[in-house]
C-alpha cells in the first residue's frame, strides 16, 4: 500500500539517464553478439557441406581426369591394372535400394494408413513409437543380426519360395547355400528404411482434412474407397517424397550392407548371388587402397554417392513442395 502514498515519479536524474544509456549499449552489444554467434552455427553447416563436396571432388580429380564422366558406366574394377569403373558398385547400390524400396513402400504405406486412419488412438500411440524404434537399432547391430539370423532365413526359407513363384523373371535364381546376397542386403535395408517411410507417411496422412474424409464416408464410401479416392490422391506427392528419402537412406547405408552383401564386384540379374555397393566398396577398400589411382577411384565413387544423395534430397524437397502448393 505504501506505493500509493509515494509522490508522483520525478523526472529522471542524470544518474538514471546514464544508467539507461549503459543498459541500451549492453543490450545492443549482447544482441549483436548473439546474432554473430548464431551466424557462426549456420555458416559452419554451410561450410561443412561445401567442404565435403570440394574435398571429395579434389580427391577424385585424378580418376576424373583419367576415366572421364563415363566412369560410372564401366564395369571392370581391377586396381592392379589401373582399370577402374564403378558400374558394378552402382548397379549393386541401385538394385538393393530399389528392392528394399519396393518392400518398404508396400509395408510402410500400409503401416502409415493403419496408424493414421484405422487404428484407435491408444493402439497408434503404442505401435507408432515401436515402429520408430526400428530406426534406433544401430546399423552394425543390424548387420550382425543380418549375418546370423536374416541370411540363413533368407537362404533357406524365403529364397526357395521366391524362386518357385517368381523364378521365371530371372531375378530369383536357384537359392545358393550361402546367404550373403543382394537379396539379403535388400531385406536388411527394408528393415532400416521401413520406420522412415511409415512415420513420414503417417504424419502426411494425418494432414488430410477430416471434412474430406467424413464427406466421402457420408456419401457412402467404404473405408477403402475413402482411402483410395480421397487420402491417397491428396497425399501422393508426400508419399513420393517419403519414398525418395527412404531410397536415399538405403543408398548411403554402408556398414550393415557390407556385412551381408558378400562383396563380390559382379553384375547379374540374379538377386540371390553376392554383389557389392558403392558404400560398401568405400568401407572395404578406402583405408588400404592398392595405389593412389584406386584411392582416387574410390573418391570418385564417393562423389557418385554424394551426387545421388544430393539429387534425391532435392527431388524429395521439390515433390513435397509441389504437393504442398496443390493442397
Amino acid at each position, binding site marked *: 500500500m505504501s506505493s500509493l502514498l509515494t509522490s508522483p515519479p520525478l523526472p529522471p536524474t542524470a544518474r538514471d539517464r546514464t544508467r539507461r544509456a549503459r543498459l541500451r549499449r549492453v543490450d545492443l552489444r549482447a544482441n549483436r553478439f*548473439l546474432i554473430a554467434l548464431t551466424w557462426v552455427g549456420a555458416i559452419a553447416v554451410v561450410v561443412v557441406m561445401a567442404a565435403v563436396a570440394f574435398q571429395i571432388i579434389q580427391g577424385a580429380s585424378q580418376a576424373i581426369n583419367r576415366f572421364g564422366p563415363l566412369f560410372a558406366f564401366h564395369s571392370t574394377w581391377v586396381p592392379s591394372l589401373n582399370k577402374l569403373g564403378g558400374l558394378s558398385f552402382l548397379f549393386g547400390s541401385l538394385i538393393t535400394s530399389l528392392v528394399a524400396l519396393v518392400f518398404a513402400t508396400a509395408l510402410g504405406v500400409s503401416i502409415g494408413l493403419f496408424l493414421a486412419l484405422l487404428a484407435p488412438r491408444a493402439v497408434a500411440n503404442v505401435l507408432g513409437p515401436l515402429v520408430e524404434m526400428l530406426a534406433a537399432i544401430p546399423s*552394425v*547391430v543390424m548387420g*550382425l543380426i543380418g549375418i546370423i539370423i536374416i541370411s540363413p532365413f533368407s537362404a533357406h526359407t524365403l529364397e526357395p519360395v521366391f524362386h518357385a513363384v517368381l523364378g521365371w523373371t530371372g531375378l530369383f535364381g536357384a537359392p545358393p547355400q550361402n546367404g550373403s546376397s543382394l537379396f539379403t542386403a535388400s531385406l536388411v535395408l527394408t528393415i532400416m528404411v521401413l520406420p522412415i517411410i511409415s512415420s513420414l507417411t503417417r504424419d502426411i496422412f494425418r494432414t488430410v482434412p477430416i471434412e474430406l474424409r467424413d464427406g466421402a464416408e457420408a456419401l457412402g464410401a467404404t473405408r477403402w474407397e475413402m482411402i483410395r479416392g480421397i487420402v491417397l490422391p491428396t497425399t501422393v506427392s508426400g508419399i513420393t517424397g517419403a519414398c525418395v528419402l527412404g531410397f536415399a537412406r538405403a543408398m548411403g547405408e554402408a556398414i550393415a550392407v557390407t556385412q551381408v552383401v558378400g562383396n563380390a564386384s559382379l553384375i547379374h540379374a540374379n538377386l540371390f548371388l553376392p554383389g557389392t555397393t558403392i558404400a560398401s566398396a568405400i568401407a572395404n577398400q578406402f583405408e588400404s587402397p592398392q595405389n593412389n589411382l584406386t584411392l582416387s577411384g574410390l573418391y570418385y565413387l564417393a562423389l557418385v554417392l554424394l551426387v545421388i*544423395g544430393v539429387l534425391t534430397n532435392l527431388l524429395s*524437397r521439390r515433390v513435397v513442395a509441389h504437393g504442398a502448393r496443390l493442397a
Partner: protein
Amino acid sequence: MSAITPDPAHALTPSGNLARRLRVSLAIQGLAVSAAALAAAILFILVGFTVVKGIGALSWSFLTGNLPAATGQAGGIGPALVGTAELALMAGIISVILGVLTALFLTEFASPRVASPVRLMLDLLAGLPTILAGVFIYGLVVSRFGQSGIAAAIALAMVMTPLVARATLESLQRVPETWRDAASALGVSHWRTVLTVVLPGAASGITTAAILAVARGAGETAPLLFTSSLYGNGVQLNPMHALPNIPLEIYTLIETGYPQSVSMAWGAAFLLMATILLVNIGARILLRRGERKRGL
C-alpha cells in the same frame, strides 16, 4: 441453381455389390493391420534374438576386461565402453552447440532469403551418407595428423548436428508466438527474449534432441571406420589417439568369425542396443512430460 434435379429413386437403387465393396474394404484394412503387426513382430524378433544371444556373454570381466589381445582370443569390452562414452560426449558437445545455434539462427534471426539456403544445406547434411562423413574427415584430418578421437568426434558431430538442429527447430517453432510478442511488449530486448523466454520454452525439446542425437552417435560405425579404428587393447583416454569404441569392436569381432568372438559381439551388441533403446524410450517420456507441464 443447376437445372438438373437429382433422381432420388436412382440413388436409392441398390447396386447389389455393397457386400463385395465391404469385403474389399475389410480385406485391405486387414492387410494394413497385418503390415503393422509384421513391423512390430520384426522389432520383437530382432530385439529378442539380441537379448537371448547377448545376455549370456555379459559378466563383470566382460564389461571391465581389456579387448582381446589377438583375434579369436577371449577378452572384455571395458576400453571400448569408455571410448564410446568419450566419443559420444565430445561429439554431443560439438553438435549441441552448432545445432542449437543453427536452429536459433533459422527461427529467431535469419531473414527468409538467408534462411532458405541454410535450411537446404541442413537438409543435405542430414541426408549425407554417414560413410562420406568418414571419408571427408579422413581427407581433412586423418591423412595429415593420423587417427584420433577428436577426428572421430568431428565426423560423428557431422552426423548428429543436423539431427539436433532439426529437432530444436521443431521445438522452437512450437514456442507460442504470443510469448515472444509479450516479451517485446514489456520492452525486453531481443537477445534477452531469446535467452530467457524462447530457449527455456523449448528446453525439454532441446534436451530430448541432444539425448537422442548422442544415442544415435554412440551407435554409428561408418564415421569411425577411417578415423578411430587403429586402437590398442587397453583403456585409452587421450583424444589425440584413436579411441576404442563399441560399434567398431562389434564390426571387427564379427569379421574374425571365431565363435568366441561372435558371442562377444552379441554381448556388446546387446549392451549397445539396450542402452540406445532405453535412452530413446526415456527421452520420449521426458519430452511428453515436459511439454504437457508447460501446456504446449
